[in-house]
């Protein structure tokens, strides 16, 4: 599938329709093709329009709808079935339908393409972004979508301190949120206090959808600025403040209420009908008659009539649904390695194929030694680069790959994945060879040469070289298996560890309080190094687990946490520079310097390249790419455009 934008200014939509009808006649498919050309919308919508219950297609589409160049022109109809869990699974809906931001990702996850905005301009300093919206675009209730909605969403909602205590980070740079001004009905300008070259990429991710999230003519009735009597509504709903009511009616990017109000106008391809609420057993969505995208022949999308999400409490029953062919496309909750054999075996019975989900992470099992440990002796040990180097060389990565990952990976540390333009050989591969001899020699050299009766090394203060590694077995069972092997490998070089399997909330609490010795987590930044650089420097207060206090220093601008070493400070500066640089080549050069420093510092220990996941897709579901990224920033399968999937 390629993406193609209709040239602006030249043809208008009616001309295009005429053009297609003409072309079809010339090719000689006269009757049938003409009939098809006449009805470029779903049959039920065509009927409603003919009966006068709905405006004509031409009046529902914008003057220049977004044209999706589909693989195969589809046919209308059918219901797409997916599964959800009963709790905290609202993003399963978001991923399929709710990623309609100003811009979007291409399929390869390398470039930002027009979406709601048909084009944009950026000033050389990357502080001003001017977006041109689509003239005549409508909300799902038929009212126009204009610059006013964007201004309302940001200025009145996202920046409202009663609604959001602090503005969402996607629209904030250097601690200040952007200012949005309306130029005319279809043009808006975002102004930032300092350069923010990454803004477009951020706008393509789910957390960057604020500009198109709130519908002014509907949402303003719950906003005190527009409705002075909002207090009565709050009281009638038995809530305590207007912000709660606003959220209950309009949702937010990733809260369940976003899918809980069928009245709320949206710009998504499907509109909620049976909402996702606490007691729901099934969520359904119906096509948006005003959806603003068409295929290259001018047929309005989406092709598929409706979506049904059955809610199961338990993943095993989701597996049964999959193998009995009751799910049309699903990767959520199924994509673990243990499920793959069962799902492969039953492909024929379930009538589905497997699709490959390219890992966007760099590292499958990143080991974070806490270099800011509260115990000074432990801190000293972990902060020693040669100690970490010895541990890395003590791991037999090939054995882990063969046993745990069925040979589907390669030894790796961290950094952009092979094939990425920013791939960094040293960062990715240093110290990945299995060399217990060198590791032992190194440990002897740095003062851990004495051993106890069991052959474990002793620290200079007489304590055993021992630490616990936190891991969440329910989330990542494979990491537990890997750690058990690592424990064996490290025993050979005299280092004792405990695989500390804990519950996930405890894992987070220990990290937040800086109580952990060490922890593991998949290491991100493989395809999206700019969006999640937590392993390249101390950037993420919950994720850069080798030095949480340093991240606090960075995030708070030096007010909280602990001051990091010089190399970290340089990287923080470099990253801020890279984020302000629009030119991709220049940005790459800055990031190369950052990666050089990361490689020299060698803070995290990796095991192997993140393994691709998989999903299932029914054989009769068409226009689904064979593989696509698996990421939150590229919220699969959304950017593969489910609106152009169809049933053959």
């Amino acid at each position: 599938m390629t993406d193609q934008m209709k040239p602006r200014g030249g043809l208008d939509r009616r001309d295009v329709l005429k053009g297609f009808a003409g072309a079809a006649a010339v090719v000689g498919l006269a009757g049938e093709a003409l009939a098809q050309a006449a009805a470029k919308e779903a049959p039920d919508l065509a009927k409603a329009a003919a009966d006068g219950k709905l405006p004509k297609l031409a009046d529902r589409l914008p003057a220049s709808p977004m044209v999706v160049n589909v693989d195969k022109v589809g046919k209308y109809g059918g219901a797409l079935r997916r599964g959800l869990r009963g709790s905290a699974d609202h993003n399963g809906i978001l991923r399929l339908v709710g990623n309609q931001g100003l811009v979007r990702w291409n399929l390869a996850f390398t470039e930002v393409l027009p979406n709601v905005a048909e084009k944009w301009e950026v000033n050389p300093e990357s502080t001003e972004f001017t977006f041109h919206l689509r003239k005549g675009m409508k909300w799902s209730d038929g009212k126009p979508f204009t610059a006013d909605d964007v201004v309302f969403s940001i200025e009145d909602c996202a920046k409202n301190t009663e609604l959001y205590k602090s503005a969402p980070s996607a629209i904030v740079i250097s601690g200040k949120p952007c200012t949005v001004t309306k130029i005319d009905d279809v043009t808006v300008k975002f102004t930032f206090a300092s350069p923010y070259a990454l803004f477009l990429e951020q706008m393509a991710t789910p957390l960057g959808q604020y500009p198109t999230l709130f519908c002014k003519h509907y949402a303003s009735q719950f906003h005190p600025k527009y409705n002075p009597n909002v207090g009565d509504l709050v009281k009638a709903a038995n809530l305590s403040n207007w912000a709660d009511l606003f959220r209950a009616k309009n949702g937010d990017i990733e809260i369940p209420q976003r899918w809980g109000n069928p009245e709320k106008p949206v710009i998504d391809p499907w509109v909620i009908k049976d909402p996702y609420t606490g007691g729901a057993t099934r969520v359904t969505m119906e096509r948006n008659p005003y959806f603003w995208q068409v295929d290259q022949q001018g047929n309005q999308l989406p092709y598929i009539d409706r979506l049904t999400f059955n809610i199961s409490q338990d993943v095993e029953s989701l597996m049964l649904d999959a193998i009995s062919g009751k799910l049309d496309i699903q990767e959520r909750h199924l994509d673990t390695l243990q499920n793959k054999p069962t799902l492969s075996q039953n492909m024929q019975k379930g009538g589905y194929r497997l699709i490959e989900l390219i890992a966007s992470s760099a590292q499958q099992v990143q080991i974070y030694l806490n270099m800011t440990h509260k115990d000074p002796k432990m801190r000293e040990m972990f902060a020693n680069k040669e100690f970490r180097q010895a541990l890395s060389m003590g791991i037999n990565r090939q054995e882990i790959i063969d046993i745990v990952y069925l040979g589907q990976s390669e030894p790796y540390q961290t950094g952009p994945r092979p094939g990425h333009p920013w791939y960094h050989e040293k960062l990715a591969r240093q110290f990945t060879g299995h060399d217990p001899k060198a590791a032992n020699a190194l440990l002897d050299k740095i003062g851990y040469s004495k051993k106890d009766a069991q052959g474990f090394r002793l620290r200079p203060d007489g304590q055993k070289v021992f630490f616990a590694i936190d891991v969440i077995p329910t989330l990542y069972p494979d990491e537990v298996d890997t750690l058990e092997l690592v424990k064996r490998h490290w025993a050979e070089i005299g280092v004792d560890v405990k695989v500390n399997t804990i519950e996930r909330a405890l894992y987070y609490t220990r990290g937040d309080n800086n109580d952990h010795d060490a922890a593991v987590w998949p290491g991100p930044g493989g395809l999206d190094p700019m969006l999640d650089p937590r392993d390249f420097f101390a950037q993420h207060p919950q994720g850069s687990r080798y030095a949480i206090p340093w991240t606090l220093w960075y995030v708070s601008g030096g007010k909280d946490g602990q001051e990091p070493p010089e190399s970290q400070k340089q990287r923080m500066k470099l990253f801020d520079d890279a984020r302000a640089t629009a030119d991709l080549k220049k940005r790459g050069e800055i990031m190369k310097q950052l990666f050089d420093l990361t490689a020299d510092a060698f803070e995290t220990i990796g095991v192997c390249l993140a393994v691709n996941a998989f999903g299932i897709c029914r054989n009769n579901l068409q226009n689904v790419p064979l593989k696509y990224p698996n990421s939150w920033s590229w919220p699969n399968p959304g950017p593969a455009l489910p609106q152009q999937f169809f049933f053959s």
Partner: protein
Amino acid sequence: MLRFILSRLVWMVPSLVVVSFLSFVLIQLPPGDYVTTYIATLAASNEVVDQNTAAELRSRFGLDQPMIVQYAKWLGNIVTRGDFGLSFEWQQPVSDLIWERMALTLVLTFSTLLATWGIALPIGVFSAVKKYSIGDYLVTFLSFLGLAIPSFLLALVLMYIAAVEFGQEVGGLFSEAYVQAPWSFYKVLDLLHHLWIPVIILAVSGTASLIRVMRANMLDELSKPYVTTARAKGLSEFRLLVKYPMRLALNPFISTIAWLLPNLVSGSIIVAIVLSLPTAGPLLLQSLMSQDMYLAGAFVLLICTLTLIGSLISDILLALVDPRIRLE
């Protein structure tokens, strides 16, 4: 009798307060809070919560306040306004969420109860009367088998067989077409059509243990002199069984009513999850796992209230059925 009931009712109030406090503490006891769990759950699908959001959520839900303050607020709202609060996750009133699921839960529990008693009581009596016959051994064998098989496993195996071998759906209580449909005669038929599977699965282990209990109780009674006396007086065997030993053997069942009521809510959770039943159990488990304080707290409070009421009812019933028991 009336005084007894009244004093029991009065004592319920302090018990409930203590229990509600304990449950509040217990739910808070695990590390982290709703927000940590929420972030961790999203992280499981590679999803990230905006860094500014986490702190905001905590203050919005009042999780940054001391526990005792949270408890006082919660209890205050219940006592003064009957308001159980909003579920953190769904932002819907807790009472709506619970009642929404109670009707089907009641249907399921009572059907299971009827099935269990209907099967277990006659068989238990039979195997006691025909002690050590082939029939008794057969029933004993089957009931031990039923006791030994965990019901969720039975559910999974049945589902697997139905799905893979017969291509039939087993999960849920309704067919596709009726899930969202309003109530009608056909929907009830559809419910009955689906209900028997969970009822059987749930009844299996209950039936097995009841058969054993009934058999043992009956054996205790059958050898007593009053049975011989009744038989000597020429009472028909059936009348004799039903009128005397069986009535006494029923005592333990009546005392189990105390657990029966709370089981309405918390029983059969695992089976309900496996079978995707829209009953209260899965919601309870979910709220505990996500540390959704108000929802979980309301559930625990409900279960405790039902336990207290249940034991009161069974005490009263016991006194009515068995004249040897005196209140006071």
